[in-house]
């Protein structure tokens, strides 16, 4: 059939394009165009005010990629990148946590729905609210965690809970706060997956007498694969675009030790008014996200086709 579509098929294609047109238009305007415009801006040194924006190498002897050269020598950029990697590694722990919660509460009982709603609650909050609540928890002097630690005697009377003031541990506090709503999100995705399992397969396995762990590992997890794909992708994206929570809880501090690329991009662009440099950071962030997700999707598709 290659090369020759039937009349009906061709008409279907036309109709399909017509239906797609409005969303394709908006998608290009708000997603595709800004991506390429950012790439263009990353070659300039726009300050947000001047009306003329030319790439750096036009009319001067500096390199078009000066922003990227500066990035390479920027300690805060590397610190942010390192923190983004920490986010990718540790934020993804919320996925197994979500799975565990989903398995625990996937029973038909009134109490289970009550706990599910409680767990889902943080997902409904805006991340700004989550950040505010957690900064209160982790607050030295007045915070809940310090109060509890003093209560059980882990902190002496004159001592303070200094996690969020520490360059080493602030990011850990941030990831813990971010994992709270995200684990709930993963739980919901897995709960949806669990309710779509093929019952006859599970029954057959039960008759065969498999152990609980075998059931989980060889039957349930493979059947949850579609849910897992979504969970992994939203978790990766979540870790890479972490921004609001950090902005609220530490603003990247102390001394940039908890900064990440998305926040650093914002600070450079809208606080320091280096639109070009900010765009260069966003281009790097975009490249990393694209690479990770392409790799993951490619692997997933290969597995899928390999199996069928």
């Amino acid at each position, binding site marked *: 059939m290659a090369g020759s579509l039937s009349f009906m098929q061709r008409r279907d294609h036309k109709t399909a394009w017509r239906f797609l047109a409005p969303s394709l238009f908006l998608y290009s305007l708000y997603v595709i165009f800004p991506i390429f415009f950012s790439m263009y801006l990353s070659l300039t040194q726009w300050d947000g005010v001047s009306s003329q924006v030319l790439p750096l190498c036009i009319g001067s002897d500096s390199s078009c990629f000066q922003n990227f050269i500066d990035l390479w020598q920027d300690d805060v950029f590397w610190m942010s990148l390192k923190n983004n990697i920490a986010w990718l590694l540790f934020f993804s722990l919320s996925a197994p946590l979500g799975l565990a919660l989903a398995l625990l509460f996937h029973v038909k009982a009134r109490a289970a729905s009550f706990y599910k709603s409680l767990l889902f609650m943080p997902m409904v909050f805006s991340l700004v609210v989550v950040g505010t609540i957690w900064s209160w928890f982790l607050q030295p002097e007045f915070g809940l965690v310090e109060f509890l630690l003093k209560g059980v005697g882990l902190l002496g009377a004159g001592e303070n809970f*200094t996690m969020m003031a*520490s360059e080493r541990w602030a990011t850990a506090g941030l990831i813990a706060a971010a994992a709270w709503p995200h684990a709930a999100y993963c739980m919901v995705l897995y709960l949806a997956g669990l309710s779509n399992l093929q019952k006859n397969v599970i029954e057959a396995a039960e008759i065969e007498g498999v152990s609980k762990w075998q059931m989980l590992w060889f039957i349930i997890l493979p059947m949850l694969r579609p849910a897992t794909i979504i969970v992994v992708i939203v978790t990766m994206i979540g870790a890479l675009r972490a921004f609001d929570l950090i902005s609220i809880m530490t603003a990247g501090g102390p001394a940039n030790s908890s900064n990440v690329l998305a926040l650093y991009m914002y600070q450079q662009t809208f606080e320091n008014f280096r639109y070009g440099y900010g765009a260069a950071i966003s281009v790097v962030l975009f490249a990393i996200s694209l690479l990770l997700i392409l790799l993951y999707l490619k692997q997933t598709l290969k597995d899928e086709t390999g199996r069928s």
Partner: protein
Amino acid sequence: MKLLKVIGLGLACFASTAFAASGELVINSMHSDPTSKKAFETILSEFKKEHANINVKVNTIDHESYKVQIRTWLPNNPPDVATWFAGNRAKFFVEKNLVEPLDDVFSATAGQFSAGALSAISFNGKKYLMPTNYYHWGFYYRKDLFQKAGINAAPKTWDELLSAAQKLKAAGITPIAIGTKQAWPAAAWFDFINMRVNGYAFHMNLLAGKGSYSSPEVKKTMATWAQLVKVGAFPETAAAMTWQEASALMWQGKAAMYLMGNFISSEIPSAVKAQVEFFPFPTIDPKIPTAQVAPTDVYFIPAKAKNKANAKLFMSFLARADIQQKYNEVTGLLPVNTQAKIDTKNSFLKSGQQILGQATGLSQFFDRDAEPEVAKVGMDGFVEFLRHPDRTDAILNRIETTRKRVHR
């Protein structure tokens, strides 16, 4: 609310182009907090009484959005009057020819503004901004805690400050409160110590991007500051606290001193009000004349304003002593016009007027005097310094690298 403001702004811009001839005056203001909004409304009603034929429209935009948005509307579709900051933040726009000179307006009030105040609003020999209010910085301290630690008088010299810190530390009281979750409170320390060690001219030159941060002078500033850090004068939890949270340490009696702007004086809880007093930043080198930090709020006329005649009327109005007095009776800040009177029962305002009047120079604050990028790297560096004074050289080199790139 924000959407309404944006729509309002849009309509105002449209309206100002449509009826330019009929006595319009469009003012964009970033003073969105209740107090300064009320202060502005007070004098605005006065202006409307005096000029009933002018139709005044005010767009109040929240502070942070204003700072971003001004870059869009100022070159393209500006109002007739806008609020801003004195010093380098304004210089940026002045150098891009976006601000109208005001020398003719100032001629009516000659001699009523101090030389220090005028230096913050003049660029290349011309006056561009109308200063309406400023406030002073210095130490707020708990008298009762000082007595408890056996300190009899407020420190006047650096050595006295150091020994006070040691005594407080020994008495189990945090000597100096500071919250650096937002980095700026740390910068006040740099401003003051640098001005006291190296002088006002050196400081302003450095922040204007013309001096080196890795110079021996700046290293001396940091070494002086480090003496206090090494005594353990600052709380180790500083980086996890905002400036308000840190002030709670003082209200609760856990900390004894706080280097802050006078806006803190309106937040002192009534329970400890009687115990809180003020002393100016101590002398470090007696040979150096005393300068102060005094962030100044200003109004200006954009170069592309449509109703410049009305805008100038408004500027002359703002310059008057009686108007500045009315305005600052509400704001609780100090009027810049020296003939305006202040509430002499307010001891904080009195000290403020005194120290600013005697100052040989007024700086605007680190993040207003330095370029935004240098300010950001600098303030992050100062926060790091408070925890790791041993990293001074690396921190100064980092600031210097940024300065060189920005001012190349």
